[in-house]
């Protein structure tokens, strides 16, 4: 199984990595329990910064597509195939759409929504 990234593509490199690993799981090209290369190895092979690969792995781990087992390395999660189908981004967009629609229905202007959104996002204790 081989990964291929395009450094000039409009999609960020870490997103390309996430999508390709998820696709590989969905298409049964990699299976639960299969080991993945270390962050350093993948970053060296793709001539990328370690942080880029680490970000992709962190997000995949958050989505329970992969799991890190300490010094033994990183593996495909046992429920990876089910978890790949979960579209967190779609869920966020759906919720935000409903919320913004309810604000507009009550007469809140777009600029007021933007300012309020920005203020909430900047709250440190959130």
């Amino acid at each position, binding site marked *: 199984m*081989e990964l291929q990234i395009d*450094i000039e593509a409009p999609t960020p490199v870490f997103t390309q990595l996430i999508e390709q690993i998820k696709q590989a799981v969905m298409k049964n090209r990699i299976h639960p329990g299969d080991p993945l*290369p270390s962050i350093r190895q993948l970053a*060296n*092979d793709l001539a990328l910064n370690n942080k880029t690969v680490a970000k992709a792995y962190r997000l995949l781990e958050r989505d329970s597509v992969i799991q890190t087992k300490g010094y033994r390395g990183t593996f495909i999660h046992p429920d990876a195939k089910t978890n790949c189908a979960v579209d967190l981004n779609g869920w966020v967009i759906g919720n935000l759409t409903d919320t913004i629609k309810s604000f507009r229905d009550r007469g809140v202007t777009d600029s007021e929504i933007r300012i309020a959104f920005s203020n909430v996002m900047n709250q440190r204790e959130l």
Partner: protein
Amino acid sequence: MTESIIFYALLTSQLVLMSFYFPRRIHQRMQTAFYTYTPDQYPRLYPKPASYYERLHQNYRLANQLLLILGCSVMMAMLAIDFDLSAKHAQMVPWAIFMIQMMPQLALELAEFKQLKLMRQSDQRTTRKAELSPRRLFDIVPRPLFTVTIIILTVSFVLDAFMNDFNIGFDTSTFYRWLILGLGNMGFALGAWWLIYARKKNPYQSGTERKLQARANISSMLYVSIGMSLFVVISETIDTYELVRLSPAAMSLYCQLIAMASLSTMLNTLRLDRLDFEVYREEPQSA
């Protein structure tokens, strides 16, 4: 007399092996690659003009021929002056000859590094590929070879100490031999790590081919490590039993074993028919 015959026979073998046999095989390999995978059809493999490679091949061959003549002359001179095999540092003579014989090889390695650097610089592709599987030491190196190397290294440490009545203080020769062996093997370990995990030098090399190259390099390092360990045991035996006149012969044999372990492993593992040259063809221009 017997020691002299053994020494000169081994020195002749060293001269032939290092300045004729291996250079001839390497030259033939370079020529086959150059004329089978030509610069016209495989431009990515040749970042410099074709004439540069022809000159490089010629110079390599010429350098080895000159070194063979030089080596034979040195051997004749040693015979003429009736070289004392028990002289202090006599064993360094075959070592020095070996180091000089390795010069063209070293030059070739440096040329390869420059070549790979130019290949990286001229690589205009925006896509990059990587295998989605971890590279591990034992996926690359045969486990029995690794185990044997460690066992022989341990045995050589213990035997060396045993022959010196376990006198291993900082000022003893045993300590220095341990240090040299330890540092040498640490160097090999670092080299193996670099081969397995570092950024690849050839931008067109596939994952499979990289593993093959790492296997060839690491295996040759393990063979050299075995040779080093055995040499320590043999030289210690020579010292213990006062067979000092055999030291130069032992050194020559050691040099040849090192050369065979490294060059022969590389040449046999990285055969041209096992390498994928298609990646060096020019990509078709999109309309």
